[in-house]
């Protein structure tokens, strides 16, 4: 679960990380009222999860009530425009008004989980304000890293060392160990997968302030912090995630693509493998769908309808390898789903192997369906049928 900037900054505030004075608002009227009562220079920032707000014109400046109202209205008038990773764009439902900082320098500071060392990794670079992947590409030597021993935790020397290794401006030196300490506290306390300050501003009057906040919490740890359940409701699921949830699947279990071969498999690895197989057979897959374990009739029907109603699938390729999932249950599910669904009908290609496969095949045969033997054979058959139906 990714947090919006204002939510991340609330966690920063709790952890003692310096943040600009700010107010979170949901309407242009509120924005105007706030600036009227708090004269000065303010930045008006759209609260969205997508990056690229500045380029999209979703960060503006205000010096009085009228300009605040105009900026807020203009920002909220249109959603964030789509990009490659967010083809649907993102609605803008709220704004953060923030004091305009007299920024002198911008650095980068983050904590993530390093898969190889299995430790939290602290990263600091003097090139703030740009995407860390760009920094990694253009100035790889500039990213100083420290791996934190989980048992010992974070100590200020780590921050001191990083400020030297990253060749930060001396103005950062005094504050950085404390800023990273706060970041580590919240990373640990809330079970975050990523906490990032980009940029970490050094102001002309010598203050070190977190000018932006990016926090990704571990969905699996949300039960430990029930308050975030409420925060989650303001974060929009994308359309695929919403559809997956409605079908009773996990949010990561379904994703649409442009092709005409609908797919369903059990297990993420096999589901990805099924997409790959369709591609290898010269076809194009309509979706990724991991049905999970225990594919009963209701689950299979939901998945079938999900793909039929929301993709351009001309054929449906079901690829099941039974481990926990029992083939006889899936077979019953398929037969029952097709008998009861109100969705459009397309040709089915079924591959069913593994636990209780003989029983599963018999159930399908009784219903007049013949499963194919292998994944490649199924993919080839599905691609052929999709082509014939086109």
């Amino acid at each position, binding site marked *: 679960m990714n947090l919006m900037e204002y939510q991340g900054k609330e966690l920063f505030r709790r952890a003692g990380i310096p943040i600009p004075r700010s107010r979170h608002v949901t309407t242009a009227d509120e924005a105007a009222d706030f600036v009227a009562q708090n004269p000065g220079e303010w930045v008006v920032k759209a609260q969205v999860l997508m990056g690229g707000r500045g380029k999209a014109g979703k960060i503006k400046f205000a010096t009085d009530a009228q300009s605040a109202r105009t900026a807020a209205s203009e920002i909220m008038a249109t959603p964030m425009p789509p990009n490659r990773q967010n083809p649907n764009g993102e609605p803008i439902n709220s704004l953060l008004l923030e004091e305009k900082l007299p920024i002198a320098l911008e650095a980068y500071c983050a904590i993530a989980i390093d898969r190889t060392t299995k430790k939290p990794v602290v990263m600091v670079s003097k090139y703030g304000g740009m995407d860390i992947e760009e920094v990694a590409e253009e100035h790889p030597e500039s990213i100083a890293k420290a791996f934190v021993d989980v048992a010992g935790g974070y100590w200020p020397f780590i921050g001191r060392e990083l400020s030297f290794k990253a060749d930060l401006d001396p103005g950062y030196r005094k504050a950085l160990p404390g800023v990273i300490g706060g970041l580590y506290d919240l990373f640990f306390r809330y079970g975050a*997968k990523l906490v990032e300050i980009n940029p970490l501003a050094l102001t002309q009057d010598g203050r070190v302030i977190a000018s932006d906040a990016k926090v990704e919490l571990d969905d699996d740890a949300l039960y430990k912090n029930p308050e975030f359940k409420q925060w989650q409701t303001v974060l929009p699921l994308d359309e695929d995630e919403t559809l997956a949830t409605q079908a009773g699947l996990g949010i990561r279990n379904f994703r649409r693509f442009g092709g005409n071969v609908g797919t369903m498999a059990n297990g993420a690895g096999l589901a*990805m493998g099924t997409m790959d197989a369709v591609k290898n057979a010269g076809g194009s897959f309509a979706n990724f769908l991991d049905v999970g374990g225990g594919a009963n009739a209701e689950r299979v029907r939901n998945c079938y309808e999900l793909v039929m109603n929301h993709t351009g699938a001309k054929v449906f390729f079901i690829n099941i390898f039974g481990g926990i999932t029992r083939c006889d249950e899936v077979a019953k599910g398929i037969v029952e789903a097709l008998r009861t669904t109100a969705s459009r009908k397309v040709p089915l290609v079924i591959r069913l192997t593994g636990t209780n496969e003989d029983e599963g095949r018999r159930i399908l045969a009784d219903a007049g369906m013949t499963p194919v033997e292998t994944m490649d054979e199924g993919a080839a058959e599905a691609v052929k049928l999709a082509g014939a139906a086109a």
Partner: protein
Amino acid sequence: MSIFLDKNTKIIVQGITGSEGSYHTGRMLAYGSNIVGGVTPGKGGRKSEHGLPVFDTVRDAVDATGATHTCIFVPPPFAADALFEAHDAGITFAVCITEGVPVHDVLRVVAATPNMRIIGPNCPGLISPGKSSIGIMPGHVFKEGNVGLISRSGTLTYEVVDLLTRAGFGQSTCVGIGGDPIIGTTFVDCLREFANDRQTEAVVVCGEIGGSDEEDAAAFIKAHMPQMPIVSFIGGRNAPPGKSLGHAGAIISGKFGTPQSKIEAFEAAGVPVADRPSQIPQLLAQRMPARV
């Protein structure tokens, strides 16, 4: 030999009376695994539905049975606790099937249990065909032999094993290491074991997009296992960047975790990368004769 477990390995099941734990204990027993008991707090002194003794604590179970291995089927909030309890009781090998364990819990467990090898979490377990199985793998697709297999996925592993078995390649040990970002045992850990295992004459590495475990494996193979016939496969080659497909660990972010990077690393190590699972037996056969 095989790696990590053989016929005599004594195994307990944490969560043996739960529905998953109970069902898979039955299947493991049917496969021939030497399961000597189980743990469910509050049900100590009873028998499981399979007639196995149930203990209140892992320590009681270890004291009474001499078990060294455990298989954990407990809900995600209790998984780290179960692993720490196993470690504290002297268990040296733990398989955590549970999916959805908080990643910070796993970080703490792996940092603080140096005397225990952990497989998973979020994994199907492991099997030494013909000898023993710990976890949820469907035993009938496996066949005893001399190919070692390591995989991040569950069902894709069964797919690959089925192809190997049909092509006459039996397996020494197959390890499903799990699909989470942080796991107890990596490809490299398994490769190190296979390199020293007399039964294992070839290895199949089934990776997927995300992380750099495959690149690490390739570097290890290049440095330490140049003579061993090894074939690899990368799942999710057609996945888009920025979206994780099912497995939390299977995500391409920026240049990190792309299939290209993994394929290049394996090829640089002299390890052929199969385009599709069905190509794996063929690539193996080019490097070693099949034994039917």
